[in-house]
């Protein structure tokens, strides 16, 4: 788990006067799912395209599985798989034809088994434009992993998918990670990144604003943990109780809601407060700050 599969040092990419990516450095280990987050125009796609060999960086040192994407394009194609944000397939191509075509260019036998695995058996001879968004995404993923790449780039893989299709794709990503595939996941979906990624990097205005495990990032923020309490007699609803470590207190429907910077102290005090006064705890929920909260905090900090 310690070998570095992707190494980015001082990456810079600009289009004319516009600097899309400025001095970005990070690395990704083998078998990691690495989330690349950022608002629109943050530089995610430009950074990915430089790693994928689609664009030439203006500065910096890039290595993908030890390969320089700018100088060793042929070798790079053998070790990476890419699911682009846009489908990138001709309208009239069928899944069967696409699989045959791409596998031939990778000099391998067509992996029709992947079409079956991704639930496209019945659609193997349907033209691409007649597939649903979910089927198009699944086909794109099947094509991206057909040659069993060591590194997989996924650009907004679940955008526009329904809940079931998202869950299916998340399952596939999990399986690929188990098999040792390194995955770079560019997404707007914070919940997805938090659930799947081992580490995430947040890009803002082309610069790296934060990097680390989702838990580390959320812990590093100023966010408060939310505690919602529902009791039988509504003891907590009536008065503003003095609970330690609580900075804000409010009421919503049957729940008293507290925002705490020390969750241990607050929960212990709440339970004691309720039981000492003869009330009974019906429900207690703790919600720590999410990656989305941290993301919003960071984006609000920087204009």
């Amino acid at each position: 788990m310690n070998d570095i599969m992707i190494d980015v040092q001082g990456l810079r990419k600009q289009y004319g006067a516009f600097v899309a990516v400025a001095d970005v450095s990070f690395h990704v280990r083998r078998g990691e799912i690495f989330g690349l987050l950022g608002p629109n125009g943050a530089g995610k796609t430009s950074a990915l395209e430089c790693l994928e060999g689609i664009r030439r960086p203006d500065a910096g040192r890039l290595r993908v599985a030890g390969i320089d994407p700018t100088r060793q394009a042929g070798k790079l194609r053998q070790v990476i798989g890419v699911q682009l944000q846009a489908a990138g397939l001709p309208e009239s191509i069928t899944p069967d034809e696409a699989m045959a075509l791409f596998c031939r260019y990778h000099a391998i036998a067509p992996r029709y088994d992947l079409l079956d695995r991704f639930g496209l058996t019945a659609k193997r001879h349907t033209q691409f434009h007649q597939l649903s968004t979910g089927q198009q995404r699944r086909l794109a993923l099947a094509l991206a992993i057909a040659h069993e790449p060591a590194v997989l780039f996924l650009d907004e893989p679940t955008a526009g998918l329904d809940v079931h299709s998202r869950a299916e794709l998340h399952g596939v990503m999990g399986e690929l990670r188990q098999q040792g595939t390194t995955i770079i996941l560019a997404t707007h979906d914070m919940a997805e990144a938090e659930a799947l990624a081992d580490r995430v990097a947040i890009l803002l205005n082309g610069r790296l604003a934060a990097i680390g495990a989702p838990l580390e990032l959320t812990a590093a923020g100023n966010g408060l943990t939310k505690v919602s309490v529902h009791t039988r007699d509504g003891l907590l609803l009536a008065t503003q109780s003095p609970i330690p470590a609580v900075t804000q207190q409010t009421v919503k429907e049957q729940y008293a809601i507290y925002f705490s910077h020390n969750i241990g102290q607050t929960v212990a005090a709440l339970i004691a407060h309720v039981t000492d006064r003869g009330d009974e705890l019906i429900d207690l929920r703790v919600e720590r700050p999410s990656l989305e909260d941290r993301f919003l905090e960071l984006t609000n900090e920087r204009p």
Partner: protein
Amino acid sequence: MHAFTAHFAFEFRTGIRNKNLLLLNYLFPLGFYLMMGLIMTGINPLFQDTILPAMSLFAVLAATLLGLPDPLVNARESGIFRSYKINGVPAASILAIPALTTALHLAVVMAIICLTAPLLFEAPTPQNWGAFLLVFVVATFTCASWGVLIGVVSPSTRMTVLYAQAVFLPSMLIGGLMLPYSMLPEAAAAFAQLLPATHAMNAFNGLAMGAGADFSPWGSLVVLLLSGLLALGLAGYLFSWDSRNTERRGHPLLALLVLAPFIVGLLMF
């Protein structure tokens, strides 16, 4: 199956499966051929003599100039080229395969015209079939190269229509398909010599149909060949994988160099 063969097979099927391409490769040329055969042979008896080369050339112009560029522009704009690049599809295949499959469709259309025109319209057959096929192949190569070049340099589908029509319409009007070159006024005749259609008809008439050329038919063939080669080279040179065009190696106006052999021809013939 080799990657190139698989790609070629897919593109060939697309030429029939895609309604626009089916229209431009088959329905439009063959429909126009039937209509012109029925109408023009009555109005202008001379047209009967050139119906085979003229309608074969019309098919070439429609499929290559109107049919070839747009799918290339669409593929570039919709990220298909990027996807191809990532998966190792070479630029040469992206440019050559649509041109080759179009040529194959055109061979079918030309065969239909050659087989039916003598029966339906009592059209004379070529005196030299070998020369007819040679001119057809060279004209197809040149026009297909021009079509690919238009697809490469055109920034959008809207501009593609303009560029393609800028060649197609004058070719139809003064390229020798409807009216003989010899009937054109001097200025129009000079302008016509800048068009592949004029040289193709001149070569057809002089080398294959035995109708007499207006200027050197072999010269026309050389001009066509040189322009086709230039267009192909420029298409490769100016090709870009995506719409941002940040890595294009030259200005799109370089594409006008394909006219150079025609200008030289104009001065020589």
